[in-house]
């Protein structure tokens, strides 16, 4: 039995499949290249506060990203091997990271939706199960 406890409307950055999963709200910006293991989705950067958590299957809230020109390759690899986040929520668009989703869509692979939402709105989703629709609507599903 689940009911909707809270919602927020995100702006679609890259259209994709709707997704749901546990919210993973990162407390610091992350570099996907070197920061996330492309084979498993585990946060590999030992200096990152969420080191050891996995982005795979989560609704991933990104307060910021540290630009590496290979971030898109890591995200594409995660989509291909089934360890991508179920949806991505970004405070601001990162063209290099999101390029991984654009290419995944071109490859015909199942691509998670990516939306923009102000990071001030992230905390209300922390620790909850969250779904993101194809229209960018975020909903908490309280069990």
């Amino acid at each position: 039995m689940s009911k909707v406890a809270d919602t927020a409307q995100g702006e679609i950055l890259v259209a994709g499949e709707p997704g749901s999963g546990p919210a993973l709200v990162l407390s610091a910006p992350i570099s996907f290249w070197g920061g996330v293991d492309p084979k498993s989705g585990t946060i590999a950067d030992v200096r990152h506060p969420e080191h050891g958590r996995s982005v795979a299957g989560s609704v991933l809230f990104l307060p910021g990203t540290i630009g590496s020109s290979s971030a898109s390759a890591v995200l594409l690899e995660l989509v291909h091997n089934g360890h991508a986040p179920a949806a991505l929520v970004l405070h601001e668009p990162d063209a290099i990271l999101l390029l991984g989703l654009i290419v995944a869509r071109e490859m015909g692979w199942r691509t998670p939706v990516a939306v923009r939402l102000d990071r001030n709105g992230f905390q209300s989703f922390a620790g909850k199960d969250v779904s993101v629709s194809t229209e960018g609507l975020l909903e908490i599903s309280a069990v």
Partner: protein
Amino acid sequence: MGLTLTAEERAVADGMFGAGAAMAMRIVAESARLLGAPRLIPIASAHIDGALYHGDSGTLFAEKLVEGGARVAVRSTLNVGALDLMGCSRVRLEEPARGMARRMTEAYRRLGCEQSWTCAPYQAGHRPDFGTDVAWGESNAVVFCNSVLGARTNRYGDFLDIASAITGRAPDYGLHRPENRRATLVFDVSALPTTFLASEIAWPVLGSLYGREVGNAVGVVVGVDTHPGEDALKAFGAAAASSGAVGLFHIAGVTPEATTLAAALGGREPEAVIRVTKEMAAKARASLSTAAASDRLDAVAIGSPHLSLAEFDALERLVAGRRLAVPIYACTGRHALAELDRAGRRRALETSGITIVADTCVVVTPILPERLGAVLMTNSGKFAHYAPGNTGYAVLYGSLRDCVESAASGRPVFTDLA
């Protein structure tokens, strides 16, 4: 606002010129939309970093472009791959990754890319004209292209590099626009001793410091009286682009967009001036080593970016025919290798105990032997930055002379302490 495509660009995206070109155009256009670029601009050349194997998805992407009949529309050189295709060194990449890396190599060849396999394309005959727009990848190649050649590129990463090469278009954004190439910070090295500034190690060390201090801003270095030479600028840029997201630097009186300090600043006041002290330079040098107290040495690696023939000349002079106790891995491109072979120089180097690594390098693919607690010495700021994470070796930073003397004696030797 928003992105406007020309009728021709829309026709390409709609598949008028094949599925591969259409996919490439949609990738460039979607990136432009996310970057907020108002239009696409034509490019004169590309340098592709995306042919380095990170995982199967990159190979499948390149093969899909090939299946769609795509070909590069402009001159496109390739950065390093994961394999030593010339067979100079042994890469310990196992199947099935090795096979996928080979397939990737073949796909980029069929897309029409030049088999350059070097991170120093600018020393392998690919030098775009001053002021032209290009789409280059790999951080050191990007920073050299912008800063030393004065051609205009952003930092093009995987997928967008080859998509731009196929379409001949790039988003009108960032360093393509003259107003974003003006320096806003001054990096003043005039307080440093001239003997230090004339030394080889000054450039990787100062580059490493510059990258950390300036980050992704555009800065101008002042206090350099004489042109330090192209290999020094190559070392400075590579180190700067390793420690910070540097895409463009200027050196007043040296680089082409900085004929004077005022020209580099576009006639405005700088937002900040960083006055580099001897202590800052010493600290930056020390921070390049992670094994400062070690008396162990397992290997020496040089050639990031890839060694030029002038750098091989210096190496040969310092080795002077001696037999080395510890191997030196000398990374370079096939452009230099061809010259070394022609003159019989490669055999002499190999007899001394130097392993030439061609088409790739020791931090992007497994070449160095796996050893616990191993120590690597290098004169490259870029190798110093990436080797600990990518190879597991601790790093000692030293001049080329000290690297060679250490390899000859089998333990770390430091004489160039300037």
